[in-house]
């Protein structure tokens, strides 16, 4: 069987539709995950134990379980426990927010820790509240320190969206699988799917490097 380009061009519109959903889920997961992660990191680093202990448990729980199990739990178990209905896309986004939030928390925590204590003291010694020190002294420096690891996290989140095919989310990988089960063009379809991921992730990695370079200190 020879490589059939028409199989790819025929599948492309549908694959790109899948890509759209992949990107949508990834963006929602990243934005939500970053907010959750930053708040969790602040709780871990500066909260009293009433805040820090649950935050610690959350991070340990997410890092200690596979994301497939997490999405199964959110999609099948959570609705039963809470008596609600959840679309597969919502379940995917929730899972990604919760999952990425935990990894982001670890990244942000490390970045916050890496800011020299002397800078915090310089801010406090000027009469700033701790909140202001956090916002205006620690955050700008921690942000730069977190960038490389956050870049990896962004890429990981985009790739992790393919896992949601297990609950039937019509993202890129799922679309590839569906098309292939109709035309049996495994080589063409999976090549196309892989290349689409590669292009998107390369573009992302490139923009992240630009941001990193732009925010580097002299």
């Amino acid at each position, binding site marked *: 069987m020879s490589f059939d380009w028409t199989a790819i061009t025929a599948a492309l519109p549908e694959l790109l539709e899948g890509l759209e959903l992949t990107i949508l889920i990834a963006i929602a997961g990243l934005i939500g995950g970053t907010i959750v992660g930053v708040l969790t990191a602040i709780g871990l680093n500066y909260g009293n134990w009433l805040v820090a202990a649950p935050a610690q448990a959350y991070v340990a729980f997410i890092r200690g379980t596979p994301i497939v199990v997490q999405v199964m739990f959110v999609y099948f178990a959570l609705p039963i426990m809470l008596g609600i209905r959840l679309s597969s896309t919502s379940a995917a986004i929730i899972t990604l927010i919760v999952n990425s939030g935990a990894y982001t928390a670890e990244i942000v925590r490390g970045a916050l820790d890496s800011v*020299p204590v*002397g*800078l915090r*003291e*310089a801010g*406090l*010694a*000027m*009469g*700033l*509240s701790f909140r*202001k020190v956090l916002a*205006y*002294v620690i955050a*700008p*420096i921690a942000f*730069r320190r977190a960038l490389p690891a956050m870049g990896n996290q962004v890429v990981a989140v985009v790739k992790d969206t393919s896992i949601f095919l297990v609950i039937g989310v019509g993202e890129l990988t799922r679309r590839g699988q569906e098309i292939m089960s109709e035309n049996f063009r495994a080589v063409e379809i999976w090549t196309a799917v892989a290349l689409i991921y590669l292009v998107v992730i390369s573009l992302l990695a490139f923009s992240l490097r630009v941001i990193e370079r732009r925010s580097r*200190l*002299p």
Partner: protein
Amino acid sequence: MSMIEFRQTTKRFGAHTVLHPLDLGIESGEVAVIIGPSGSGKSTMLRCINVLETISDGDLRVDDISVLGASRDVRRIRLEAGMVFQQFNLFPNLTAIQNVMFGPIRARGRSKAEAREIAAALLQKVGLAERMNHYPSQLSGGQQQRVAIARALAVEPKVMLFDEPTSALDPELRQEVLKVMQTLATEGMTMVVVTHEMSFAKKVGSRLLFLDAGHVVHDGNPVDLLSAPPSERFRDFLQHID
């Protein structure tokens, strides 16, 4: 009422007493120089004044505000007591002038334009007008420390605390920093200076405190104390720092 008043001030780290009950008043306009061996509690004493350390016992008042007060009082004290650190601690992501503008904007609530005016004047004063758009990493240690002094002054403190401001500097860069400090002293700024620069103590200090193992062992006129060391311990110490 003294500008800074230690009242049976005690500081412990765990079981280790770093500052023994201390009674001491530092008056407005004084330049108190603190010297003493490593670990004697000099930094701790300074850090208690602007509440970077919490005292364990007694009281400590700055401009009649107690360090034991609510966080609002603590912030008021810090606004009144500027701090200069051994390691400068400039914000690496901000230029010299942005570092100096930081306090007026974030701590004093000034507008950017006002802050810029204050900062430019202070950088001029410490001799760094031409360097105001440089980042800390682009400045020498002496220049960084002068920016740090300007940054502290920009908050308009009544007292300036210096913790070994020249110790991290190469000897040839120390004078430029000491000169700025001397100017401040002649302008009447109340200063507490931890340093091993004896010439500075003699020339600029109005008072010399010798700290040893958490006790203020000597307290007097710098010239008198240095020309006639009253104790063996003090004599030993002076020999070791030369």
